[in-house]
């Protein structure tokens, strides 16, 4: 069963990472502002914490799994120098998967 999990790709390309970071920072900041104003209105700090936690959960759902929108700009690798003709015709995504770049 674990081999099925390992084969699910979990990485994103660079533009996707930037988008994911902007998304979660935006969601958490917006939920923090809403939570602060609502907590100040009902005079209960507990509501501020609950709204923040809801924002945290939403941004977890939006950015932790590798949705396809984060993988629209894959790295363009140089074509491999062919040792023998026709052997290294891999797709660019596959060669990116094999090389673990951070």
């Amino acid at each position, binding site marked *: 069963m674990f081999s099925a999990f390992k084969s699910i790709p979990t990485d994103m390309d660079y533009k996707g990472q930037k988008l994911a970071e902007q998304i*979660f920072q935006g969601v958490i900041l917006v939920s923090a502002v809403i939570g602060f104003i609502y907590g100040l209105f009902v005079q209960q700090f507990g509501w501020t914490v609950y709204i923040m936690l809801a924002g945290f959960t939403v941004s977890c759902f939006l950015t932790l799994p590798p949705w396809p929108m984060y993988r629209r700009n894959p790295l363009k690798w140089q074509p491999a120098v062919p040792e023998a003709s026709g052997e290294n015709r891999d797709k660019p995504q596959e060669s990116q998967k094999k090389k673990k770049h951070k």
Partner: protein
Amino acid sequence: MNTVLSRANSLFAFSLSVMAALTFGCFITTAFKDRSVPVDIQVSKVMIKNVDDFTGPRERSDLGFVTFDISANLQPIFDWNVKELFLYLTAEYSTKSNALNQVVLWDKIVLRGDNTKLNMKDVKSKYFFFDDGNGLRANKNITLTLSWNVVPNAGILPLVMGSGHKSLTFPETYETTKSY
């Protein structure tokens, strides 16, 4: 940010920083508030005895008995940064041997969500009103005040005195204990 764990780490750390900033904001909105309310204290019975005091250096000390009524509305003090109030009733007086004496007679904890209208009648003191010596008899000016300690969610814990006090006088003679 390439792996799920790295994204989760970044997200969680950002959330904690934002939460800390919100808590600071909660503190700032209530830091300069005046937390004093008017308090009404009445005294119904005052008695004094001269008994053996095993905690002091002398054989017999004055022991006072005060029965009082307290009423106050604590609702304006509670806001989103107050967790509970610790109320205590203090008796303050001066004697020939000591210039300032302060004795706590009674205390109460009022949690957020409890009834905030304090209206207690005929309350006996919780703690012994011992004097350091024999200075309570015929003491003309004993002042009772109600103070409280505000316990916040975030920030400083102020000690606030309620506005309103009650002065009382102790009688000239001791009461002897009755035997039944």
